[in-house]
């Protein structure tokens, strides 16, 4: 795209927060899917955290906090429209997490919660080629 400059080099972004993150019941990954914009956000900080998007390709942006430049998550755009159809493994776990076939609401919530880390892992695997290796490894660690 002509004209607009990249204002922040990827090399300036930090991975300390991702490396220090230990996912668990008291330290969850935060998911948010916006069906109107068709974007999935997966982050290690609560949704009210202020973040900036740093695009790495035409689907994926890293989310980082402006004060310390720490990467805290990913935003995947055109998620259902374009990203899922080209990533079978992500599509499988996403459909599972999105399933309404379970009759019991509690079972459905559990199934969704169980599927979330798997969605996160598959998204990171799918985006590995577009990310610098240290960032990719830090995301894999955080979403493990």
């Amino acid at each position, binding site marked *: *795209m*002509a*004209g*607009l400059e*990249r*204002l*922040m080099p990827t090399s300036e972004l930090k991975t300390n927060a991702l490396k220090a993150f230990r996912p668990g019941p008291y330290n969850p990954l935060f998911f*948010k899917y*916006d069906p*109107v*914009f068709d*974007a999935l*956000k997966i982050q290690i900080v609560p*949704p*009210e*955290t*202020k*973040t*900036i*998007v*740093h*695009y790495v*390709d*035409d689907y994926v*942006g890293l989310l980082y906090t*402006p004060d310390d430049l720490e990467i805290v998550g990913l935003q995947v*755009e*055109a998620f259902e*429209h*374009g990203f899922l159809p080209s990533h079978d493994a992500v599509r499988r776990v996403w459909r599972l997490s999105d399933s309404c076939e379970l009759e019991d609401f509690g079972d459905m919530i559990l199934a969704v919660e169980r599927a979330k880390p798997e969605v996160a892992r598959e998204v990171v695997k799918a985006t590995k080629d577009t990310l610098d290796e240290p960032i990719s490894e830090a995301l894999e660690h955080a979403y493990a």
Partner: protein
Amino acid sequence: MANVFEATDPRGRRVTCTDETWDNHILTGHPIMEGQEGDVQAAIQKPTIGIFRDAHFEDREVYYLLKRRTYVKVVVRFDGDVGTVITAFETDSPKRGERMIWPVSSD
């Protein structure tokens, strides 16, 4: 459903942003946008460089406004000449695959 603002882009197209979009999509998805209604409106009225077509959706157009260290990015869905803001957030970089549609080069 009330509008947070209405704006007219440089081509004369009218764009609205509803309070439902502002509260439930922009602020909940991107809390950094709190208090930036004026910047979103300005991005539509006087976009930096130009107006871009979205990388994946033909009916979406993208406006950027350069701030100090970031751009405010606004994504608008058009139905004919009438546009509706669907999201807005801060980014430090353009997205690959977006192409400029205004102004059009005369070369």
